[in-house]
């Protein structure tokens, strides 16, 4: 299958800091790719580079067949930021409809459908200000989904939410992938990485290793993913 997202020798430096350092990436259509690494390992910078929100210091990014940055192609991409970026003084439905409008729009039934998907249909008319953190996260996800994107970039979507909601999120993700949507999910929680089709271990702006959870464990000779990560990280100079 053809790669939906390709990055070649991608680097982004902020002064002396090499946030992303000569990284190569290739992601196939319909897979869930987990970007795994500690805080500050460059996951968010990589996602912003893939979206064309940042200009690479060197290297190139091709998304859905287009060299980034490319404004029009963003209509086919859904993006969920690390901290839920919503308008506090709008209702949940207004937020979802607004972000969908930015990407070509969504019908009212479609907005209701996404809100139902994240199980928020009963609170659709509530102001975001009055919602709990978990509800905001779910609204954020709905905002990223409403325009039926082919590619979803989710930056730590499950950070700060309870285990039950986390399980629900992962079942949405799987359902979306089954429908042919490609997902890139960043996380620093090892146990949820098991649910990804493929994983990339990231540290200091570099990909240490890539493969399915099982492959990575075998490769590292470790019993857990966490052990595998430490094994790979240990190989690098500290």
């Amino acid at each position: 299958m053809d790669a939906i997202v390709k990055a070649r020798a991608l680097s982004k430096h902020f002064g002396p800091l090499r946030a992303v350092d000569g990284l190569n990436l290739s992601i196939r259509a319909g897979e869930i790719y987990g970007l795994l690494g500690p805080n500050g390992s460059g996951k968010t910078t990589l996602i912003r580079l893939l979206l064309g929100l940042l200009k690479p210091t060197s290297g190139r990014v091709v998304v859905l067949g287009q060299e980034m940055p490319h404004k029009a192609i963003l209509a086919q991409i859904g993006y969920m930021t690390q901290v839920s970026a919503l308008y506090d003084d709008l209702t949940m439905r207004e937020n979802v409809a607004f972000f969908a409008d930015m990407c070509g729009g969504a019908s009212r039934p479609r907005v209701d459908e996404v809100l139902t998907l994240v199980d928020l249909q009963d609170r659709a008319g509530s102001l975001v200000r009055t919602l709990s953190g978990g509800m905001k996260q779910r609204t954020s996800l709905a905002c990223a989904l409403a325009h039926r994107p082919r590619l979803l970039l989710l930056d730590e979507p499950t950070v700060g939410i309870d285990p039950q909601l986390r399980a629900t999120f992962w079942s949405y993700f799987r359902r979306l992938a089954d429908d042919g949507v490609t997902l890139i999910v960043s996380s620093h929680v090892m146990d949820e990485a098991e649910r990804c089709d493929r994983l990339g271990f990231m540290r200091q702006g570099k990909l240490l290793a890539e493969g399915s959870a099982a492959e990575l464990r075998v490769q590292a000779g470790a019993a857990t993913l966490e052990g595998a990560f430490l094994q790979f990280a240990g190989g690098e100079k500290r």
Partner: protein
Amino acid sequence: MNTRRMVAIARRVMRQVLRDRRTVGLLVFVPMIVLALGAILFRADPAAIPLGVANEDQGLSIPLAGKISMGERIVKELAAGETFEVVTLNREAIDGRLRDGTVQGVVVFPKDFSAQFHQNQQATLDLRLEGSNPTRSMVITARVTEASIKALAGLVSMGIGLSGAAEADVPVTVEATYFYAGKEFDTMDFVAPVYIALLGMFFVFLLTCVSFLRERSQGTMERLLATPTTRLEIVVGYMAGLGLFALIQVAVIIFFTVWVLKIHYLGSLGLLFLIVALLAVVGVSLGILASAFARNEFQVVQFIPLLIIPQVLLGGTFWAVEEMPNYLQPLAYAMPITYANRALRDVMLKGWGLAEIWPNLVILTGYAVLLIALGALTMRREVA
């Protein structure tokens, strides 16, 4: 109460303030600048007011003393002080010069001025005022009266006019006529047009600045830029959305000043609306631009003394730009509000139409376009 903890807190707060260099600058330099401006404007000798003189006085031949022209004596007296810059005019040129503002008043001496004075033992001065600035009209009237009394008093001592009369008794009446506006216009009428401008610009500026800042700090700006929307679309969208509120606000302000405060106005309401709408657009774009340089709401408030107060002082709100010291005038002309003020006054006090005020509107539009472009450019700073 724990002193140690309080000291620790105080130290931390001081450290935070000191780390924010701009706040320190705001606390130290901005008051100095604002105070200095105020002092300069209040104290500086105003630039001389251009006063026209149409002197047709043929004078009077008096035995022993020879030929005497009283008109000439008064003109000499007017030119002697620092208040006026005397311009000699023909009678035909008076209206034109008053209209374009190159003279602020004209004293007219008819052919028989001296003869009349000799015959009636009193002088009536024909003073025509531009009239759109009531304070200035009062100054001109007072100074012209003063100068005439002085000039004619000199004649009294020569035995012409009322013999034996003291200087204070010289009978001079100044009959002032107004080219624009009129006696019933007071200082409030002069200041009201710029109140409209100031309020129209100030609130949309604050509103835009704060909402744009929120957009940046809550992450929704990044989210927006990850969609096909362009920066220019965002700026124009803001302008349209907030511009609507600005127009509503302008309507309220105009309604209040015209019908409740009963401010005099001559020109068309539609034109008034157009000027303030343009200024509101400038306010929105200035807000967007400023928000790029603020990290929080507190820093937005810092822009008030920095960007708004100088516009109040220098934009011709209370002091006419033409009467400011020469070195301040270029600054005044760099402020967008100067042009809105001028256009509003021309419309409200002089009853001018689009044909006369369009250059101001063009300049305002230019400012709006420039600021929109700069605002869109600053959005590039944080993202690619």
